[in-house]
């Protein structure tokens, strides 16, 4: 089960700034949710709190029924695609996508199988041995997504995923997001959350 519930969640920064105030949101298992809002309204902060990159000042975050406020990002089993990709520049595309599986000490054959599967969905197979610096923006975006879908996590978080790619890529990528959902047959409970800029 990968239902995400935000229960009166608030984020107050140490300098007193109130970034997120009393958010109540239930994202059902398998649901596709988009957070829309003007710049600076707390979308990134909310995503970061769900992912575990920011502490929650008040309120409860429940993932799959369990309270997840104090869980490390690792234990929450959530994947996140960053706005500026955050690809590891010193690793090839294949290594980028395999990194999380290697950390989890999966066996090499399974890692290769999953990376190849993800690369196939995202049309990255010809680029697997290249480094991020040799790829175009759209290709890097897809690698960032690939890095997440190999793990088939409980939830996908995407921070402004299409703001930096060209319109043609955006048109191709959006259906792919749904494609990931239907493609990950092993864990049908993926719920992408996309944040768009107005």
């Amino acid at each position, binding site marked *: 089960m990968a239902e995400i519930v935000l229960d009166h969640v608030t984020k107050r920064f140490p300098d007193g700034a109130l970034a997120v105030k009393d958010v109540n949101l239930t994202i059902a298992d398998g649901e596709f949710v988009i957070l829309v809002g003007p710049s600076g309204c707390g979308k990134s902060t909310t995503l970061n709190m769900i992912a575990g990159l920011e502490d929650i000042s008040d309120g409860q975050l429940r993932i799959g029924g369990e309270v997840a406020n104090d869980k*490390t990002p690792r234990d929450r089993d959530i994947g996140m695609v960053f706005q500026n990709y955050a690809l*590891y520049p010193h690793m090839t595309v294949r290594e980028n996508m395999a990194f999380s599986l290697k950390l989890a000490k999966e066996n090499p054959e399974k890692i290769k199988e999953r990376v190849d599967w993800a690369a196939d969905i995202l049309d990255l197979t010809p680029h697997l041995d290249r480094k991020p610096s040799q790829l175009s923006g759209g290709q890097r975006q897809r690698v960032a997504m690939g890095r997440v879908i190999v793990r088939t996590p409980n939830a996908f978080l995407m921070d402004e995923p299409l703001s930096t790619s060209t319109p043609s890529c955006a048109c191709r990528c959006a259906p792919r997001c749904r494609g990931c959902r239907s493609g990950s047959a092993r864990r049908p409970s993926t719920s992408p959350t996309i944040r768009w800029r107005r």
Partner: protein
Amino acid sequence: MRSTPRQKLGWGVANVVVLVIAAVPVLWLVSLSFKDPSTLTDGSFYPKKWTFENYRGIFDQSIFTHALVNSIGIAIIATVFGVVFGAMAAYAIARLDFGGKQLLIASALLIAMFPPIALVNPMFNLWRQIGLFDTWPGLIIPYMTFSLPLAIYTLSAFFREIPWDLERAAALDGATPLQAFRRVIVPLAAPGVFTTAILVFLYCWSDFVFAISLTSTNNARTVPAAIAFFTGASQFQQPTGSIAAAAVIITIPVAVVVLLFQRRIVAGLTAGAVKG
């Protein structure tokens, strides 16, 4: 921006002038080291009588071979510790906000600017009292002290260039902070680590002030200090040939390191090129 033939000539002349000014003293030293002692003062650039006697002579003396061992050992140990501790401090400075951070940075700067020679007298007394005089740790400690600020500054500049998001991505991928540091940050900071290690090593290798003041025997005397104790064939003869040979030998690692790592050094100095 295409340069005219005249500009090219101008640059060419400037390059030659700089090259000559930099290279002539070193080449003169090399030629001195190969000159037979009787021809040392003949004033010619090229040795009229070639000999390897100077080199053979210094390796015969235990003073030089011991000094070489001391130099290599002390410089390497001081570099390793300096870079490791410097990296830890630099990582904290680049990534964290903690109380006293500004004080830490300011103190490091203060230490770097302090004239080492002013410390020699009190250190001489203190070292003798606590038994560090004429020992390897006795030299390693001041070397680390004075090279740590340099290491911290260089390394924190490099760490700052590495995007914060990479560590967050690694955390989401399931890495502990240590794994993230080891597998993501360290490979990316490698040019910086190399540059810093080279700078620290060169500082320790060529230091004279501490070496001559805090050592008295072969136990810990490094090459720059040992050269000062070379003796000539008789009490009236300057050991110029031996000094020149020793100087050439001590310069070889420096030249090799810089040649091998010049790309990394330049990359290190232009760290702004690293973009996530």
